[in-house]
């Protein structure tokens, strides 16, 4: 009973909060909520590589931008109805690209893996800006058409919420599956995993492909929020901010990255209004979280849970 409760609570909270937005939210709130759920999906996919498998990829923005640009360019040239088809094609393209990039990068360890993914990311970004005849360069692409059913902020939010929830559910099942357990084992002790007869490289590659697939879906969804995209989405700072939000929220717990995204976006919104020194304030908050909460923001809840835990309450990952 206790176990089921701790497992279901986060999902309950998830549906409660994001679901209630549909009835409660004003235009701006819906806009923010859409950004949170989509970037949250990005962060959760990223965490399959990072928190779960221990691979710090600085290049996931490649797939995010890829998803956005495939969706944007297809919809613009073929019409709004192709928007949905693009959302199916984008992850496929991402998986294809991830096989190539993954095979090249995953042979490397730690910081070298990270730097190679960064180099690929910057290369892709450079091409997206310079090949302006094809991609529009850094003018970006605006006025991306959507199917009529998805026009309007609220409708699109509901759509994104449904798609994102499906993806998040799949990622969640993955996390709790034997495959997920192997990934966690690879993070903790790759040698031992290979000794039990598992192919470490193949597992890493699969994790990379899965992460890229869902990241591309997030990118494709993003194209529909403002109907405008920009090569910014490929830049290393895009990957960087997802990494930060993931660590901030808590990379060892499943929903941690989503919480990190939510907190960061809300902070930027609230603090950006009040002062031009938002940089300083957010930096100070980040330092506070790091010093006080070794498990990220998720650790805050755990902190309180420890204080108020009933006897026999369980404290590990759901």
């Amino acid at each position, binding site marked *: 009973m206790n176990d089921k409760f701790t497992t279901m609570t986060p999902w309950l909270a998830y549906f409660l909060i994001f679901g209630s937005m549909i009835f409660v939210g004003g235009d701006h709130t819906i806009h923010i909520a859409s950004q949170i759920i989509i970037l949250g999906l990005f962060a959760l996919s990223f965490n399959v590589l990072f928190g779960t498998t*221990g691979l710090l990829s600085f290049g996931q923005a490649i797939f995010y931008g890829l998803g956005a640009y495939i969706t944007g360019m297809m919809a613009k040239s073929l019409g709004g109805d192709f928007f949905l088809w693009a959302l199916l094609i984008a992850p496929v393209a991402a998986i294809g690209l991830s096989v190539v990039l993954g095979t090249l990068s995953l042979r490397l360890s730690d910081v070298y893996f990270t730097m190679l993914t960064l180099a690929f990311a910057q290369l892709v970004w450079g091409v997206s800006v310079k090949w302006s005849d094809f991609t529009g360069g850094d003018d970006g692409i605006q006025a991306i058409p959507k199917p009529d059913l998805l026009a309007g902020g609220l409708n699109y939010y509901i759509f994104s919420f449904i798609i994102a929830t499906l993806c998040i559910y799949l990622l969640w099942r993955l996390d709790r599956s034997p495959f997920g357990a192997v990934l966690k084992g690879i993070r903790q002790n790759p040698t031992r995993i290979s000794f039990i007869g598992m192919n470490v490289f193949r597992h890493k590659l699969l994790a990379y492909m899965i992460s890229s697939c869902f990241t591309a879906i997030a990118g494709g969804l993003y194209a529909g929020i403002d109907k405008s995209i920009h090569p910014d989405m490929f830049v290393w700072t895009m990957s960087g901010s997802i990494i930060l939000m993931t660590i901030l929220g808590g990379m060892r717990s499943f929903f941690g990255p989503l919480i990190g995204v939510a907190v960061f976006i809300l902070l930027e919104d609230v603090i950006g209004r009040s002062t031009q020194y938002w940089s300083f304030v957010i930096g100070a908050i980040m330092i506070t979280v790091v010093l006080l909460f070794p498990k990220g923001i998720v650790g805050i809840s755990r902190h309180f849970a420890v204080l108020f835990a009933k006897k026999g309450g369980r404290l590990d990952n759901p």
Partner: protein
Amino acid sequence: MSFEIFISQFFGGLSVAMLLFLVASGLTLIFGVAKVFNFAHGSFYMIGAYFSYQAIALFDNFWIGAVAAAIGAGLVGMLLEVCFIRRIAGREEEGAFQILLTYAFILILDDAVKFIWGPAYKTISKPESLAGSMDFGAVTIPTYNVFIILLGLVIVVSAWYVLSRTRTGKIIQAASTDTQMVGMLGVNVSLVMSLVFGVATAMGGLAGAMAAPLRTVAPGTGVEVIIDSLIVVVIGGLGNFWGALFAALLIGEVNAFGILWMPQWASLLSFAVMIVVLIFKPKGLFSREKGRKKI
């Protein structure tokens, strides 16, 4: 291509390389030797330039500015290390939190600089003694660039000597590889780490002051150098100063000739080089690092 053009591009590339090395040298110390993910390395480069600017405004002497930059950046670095980085030492996900912490430093330093000195661009002039240029037939090299080249060489030789030929250097290397053991030998490891961090940030600050006469001093300039520095450090092999120098030369020259042969794509060449190097030499060209921090 004529010999003249070749020579002039070659020496141009050499200048670029040495400045690149200067900026990256602090990072290879921090990242490669002390094993700290110092994302904010560029910010120390930036505040070094600002400290130098302020000192020159007060004392009208370039060299005082350089010293102020090194000391100022070093002190700020040590302060941040003692107050924050040290507190997360030994944590399970130390590496990840170092990333987060040092990124927070970038945010804070950017605003601090904007608050103290304002958003307007600042400038530092070359010292009178180095303001001219030297002509070698077809090639002109500004005297200041020659100075930078010499400074870079001094740094690489001193760093290599200190780290591998002196007892202090060996303690430093040992302390980051096996903290416990070295601590048991009676070395105050925390102090050593703080000092190394301070020296590395001082090097970053000095590089900022040295580069400033050629560039603009403005808020936000820190983030602009971190990627290039990382590339140099990784290609050269973490912790390897000679490696970093070689990597800087490689990137500088590839860039210099890339501008002639493929002007449209020259700015992407450093990434292409890193990709090629890492594919064929997965640990960088001359890596000598052992044991990595678990994230």
